[in-house]
């Protein structure tokens, strides 16, 4: 894993990879911390009643967890640097099995480089299928 310095980065280079295991406990913790208590994120009966395939992870939990490997990578070069811009499209829900949970795989690659910094593109998948689209993080780079 390379440090985030513009001169050493190349478009397409992988800067961070992580696998996260999400369980129902993870969802309850996120509900409490964020204040998002929509019951489709913890009640099977409510999820079924509105036609969902099961209890879903909060989209904002997936978005929030997916950027953390980039934050850690950024810290390695500049402890004070922070994300300038972060956007995603929610393309597929993450169904969280009560026993097995779900495994979210994150691969962060350099999407573009310019004078102001780098665009890091995230590939976020569950069982090989993308759950976020157009997931892009703008980060500054040390001069």
């Amino acid at each position, binding site marked *: 894993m390379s440090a985030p310095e513009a001169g050493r980065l190349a478009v397409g280079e992988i800067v961070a990879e992580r696998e*996260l295991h999400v369980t129902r406990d*993870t969802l309850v*913790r*996120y509900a*409490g*911390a*964020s*204040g*998002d208590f929509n019951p489709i994120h913890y009640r099977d009966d409510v999820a079924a009643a*509105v036609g969902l395939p099961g209890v879903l992870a909060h*989209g*904002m*939990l997936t*978005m*929030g*967890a997916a*950027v*953390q490997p980039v*934050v*850690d990578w950024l*810290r390695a070069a500049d*402890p*004070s640097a*922070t*994300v*300038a*811009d*972060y*956007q*995603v*499209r*929610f393309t597929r829900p993450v169904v969280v099995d009560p026993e097995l949970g779900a495994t979210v795989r994150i691969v962060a690659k350099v999407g573009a480089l310019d004078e102001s910094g780098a665009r890091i593109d995230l590939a976020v998948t569950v069982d090989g299928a993308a759950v976020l689209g*157009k997931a892009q*993080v703008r980060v500054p780079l040390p001069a």
Partner: protein
Amino acid sequence: MVNPELAGRTYPPTAPYLVGRETVRAFARAVQSTDPLSLDVDAARAAGYADVVAPPTFPIVIQQTTLEQLLADEDAGVDFARVVHGDQRFTFSRPIVAGDELVGTMTVTSVKTLGGNAMVTSESVITDLDGAHVVTATSALVVRGDA
């Protein structure tokens, strides 16, 4: 049904939200962060911040208070049970730090109908009590029509 005349409507600023240190830590743990700046006050201060630094998606907590205004507005016609999150974006002037007092002001930027569904895009501008910009949170919500 979503009111097509909603586009351009701006809601009043929300009551100030005081960002707590333990709230930031709890949020950071909930998104499986291991960032010392979000968890350790000394690490945050060593990096030049007054207190722990909130993870990049923390502004959703303040944006939610602005979106609640939209959901509570009967004239807007947005039924929460039919809402699916489409897109989300955060654009920062600076990170949120524990101790900040923040106010959110939301404007509905567009309403588009696609088949029986409506796509409502909103922009919540989050500032400190001096009015300085901290972060803008943009959401696209898909409101499903009658099945």
